[in-house]
């Protein structure tokens, strides 16, 4: 039996042996791209196609006739708000409109999280006793299940349990039950997002700091530069590319925030863009859901463009 298999397989091996470099490369990457065509590229194209159709709530299939950009126009102009569980964009009610809430969470979380991540990276990059343990501890928030990240803060802000809710309410920071108040819950979601992303961005920045040439610091030391000057003149410019990549990943991930919302305040209180897609999907409005999904991707693309332009400008100076 084994021999038979070998006899059958050996011509294939021989053929592989005789392939030139380029064909061999294609052969090795083909399984991955075959799988990804079905599981990634086909769904992406089809989502785009769905977004150009009409919702069909009565037929056997939730997708109706071709309507072109109608869905996009309706969502962006606010005409679709009537069929959505929360408005897409409404300046009158900023904390209940999906685009504003999502952008707010992203901007605040990325700004604060990156600064704190930079601080953590600088601290954990120093040699000290127990650094290994410190690193192990700080990775935890990033690595635990998303549902538990949300659950932790759900329990931390339960008014009947938490010793913090009442003092915070007395100070006027939060209302008596922050988890049912959209504004308070948005702040809580931002807190969770910062708490879990600091280690992620810190690890990426640490890799950048580790690759800086130590001689630069020696020269600066001889020239009499203070630690702060060394940080501003050497560390910051040197880690700029890494910081920039880390911030892009951070931004993408915050723009699709969903799990921690569902597990803490709920989508009705903090309606992010992904919440909106899931809700319309569940209402069988597949075309509208697809259009919102693509608008989300477009918004992320615009933000990344802004990053790239700003990065180019700052390095060309």
């Amino acid at each position, binding site marked *: 039996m084994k021999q038979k298999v070998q006899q059958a397989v050996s011509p294939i091996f021989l053929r592989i042996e005789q392939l030139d470099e380029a064909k*061999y490369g294609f052969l090795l990457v083909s399984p991955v791209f075959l799988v990804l065509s079905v599981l990634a590229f086909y769904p992406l194209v089809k989502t785009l196609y769905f977004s150009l159709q009409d919702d069909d709530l009565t037929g056997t299939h939730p997708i109706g006739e071709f309507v072109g950009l109608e869905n996009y126009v309706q969502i962006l102009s606010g005409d679709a708000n009537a069929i959505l569980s929360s408005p897409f964009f409404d300046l009158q009610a900023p904390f209940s409109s999906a685009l504003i809430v999502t952008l707010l969470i992203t901007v605040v979380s990325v700004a604060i999280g990156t600064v704190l991540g930079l601080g953590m990276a600088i601290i954990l990059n120093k040699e000290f006793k127990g650094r290994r343990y410190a690193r192990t501890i700080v990775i935890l928030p990033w690595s635990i299940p998303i549902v538990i990240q949300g659950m932790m803060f759900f329990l931390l802000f339960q008014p009947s349990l938490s010793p913090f809710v009442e003092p915070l309410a007395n100070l006027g920071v939060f209302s008596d039950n922050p988890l049912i108040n959209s504004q308070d819950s948005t702040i809580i979601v931002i807190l969770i997002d910062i708490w879990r992303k600091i280690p992620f961005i810190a690890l990426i920045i640490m890799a950048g700091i580790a690759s800086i040439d130590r001689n630069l610091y020696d020269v600066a030391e001889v020239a009499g530069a203070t630690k702060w000057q060394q940080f501003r003149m050497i560390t910051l410019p040197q880690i700029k590319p890494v910081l920039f990549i880390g911030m892009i990943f951070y931004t993408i991930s915050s723009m699709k925030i969903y*799990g921690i919302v569902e597990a803490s305040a709920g989508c009705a209180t903090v309606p992010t863009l992904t919440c909106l897609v899931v809700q319309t999907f569940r209402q069988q409005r597949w075309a509208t859901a697809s259009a919102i999904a693509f608008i989300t991707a477009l918004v992320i693309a615009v933000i990344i463009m802004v990053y790239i332009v700003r990065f180019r400008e700052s390095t060309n100076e």
Partner: protein
Amino acid sequence: MSEQEYTGLTGRIVQYTIQNSADVYRLGFWVGLVSFIMITLFPFYWLLVLAVTPDNQLYQMGIVPENFNIGVFATVVQEYPLHHYIFNSILIATVTVIVCITLGSLAGYAFGRVDFPGKGPLLVLLLIISYFPGIAFLIPLFELLTGSLSILGTPTPDLYNTPWGMVFPFTMLSLPITIFILTTFYSQIPDGLEDAARVEGTTRLGALFRVIMPLSAPGVVTAAIIVFIGVYREFFFSFIMTDGSPENWAVLVYGILNFQQQHTQMYNMMAAASLIGIIPIAVLVIIAQEHIVRGLTAGGLKE
């Protein structure tokens, strides 16, 4: 600067800071380190306090537990099949890891060591997938994996409530990072070793499996751990692709959420379940911290 006189309390602090900058710097370092660790650990500590507080005392509790009810951890497993959800999570994560490493090794090898035209564009294509949010794939994938789509008259198999309904989306989400990590590791192996094996008459694929793969074992382990953690912590497709009962392969997401949605007042159970759900990841992080750090940076820094 040093000629200037500093007066008053603020002035004296400023003067001290300038004269003893090394001390102040060290103080700042320790204050920073301790605050980061406390901020990190506080929510975990809060879960522990909640879990061990007997449920009739939950409403007047402080930050320190007064009574200990360790039995809650046994109750969560015995009365609610939390272990069943965790088992499902671990199994699905393991299958995804195997699929991703098998497919990803071949591609990672090609990207790291073989010269072929179109390599750059193909890598960009992988990056594009990781750029799109999960919702951009959701509806067609759901249609494809729940048997609502027919290809040439035969409907696709209905994978809703099966492990494969989650393994396929997870594979799609994890393949790009797997390939980025493996490409980095494969490209670091010196050419001489592979050439030596080839001169001795090993076939191309033989060299890949017998020389390159063993040498890049740390890379394979790193990729496997990153994918495992990624799948174990995933929320979106885990939430969509099952109805939430453990017999139907619901994963940890539902094991935790069910407490919130069905047993609304059992806060100590929620906390205990969350702590148990963290254990597999905590163990992994403790034994493989170096791998995780390396994997995250290798995957994250690949442009």
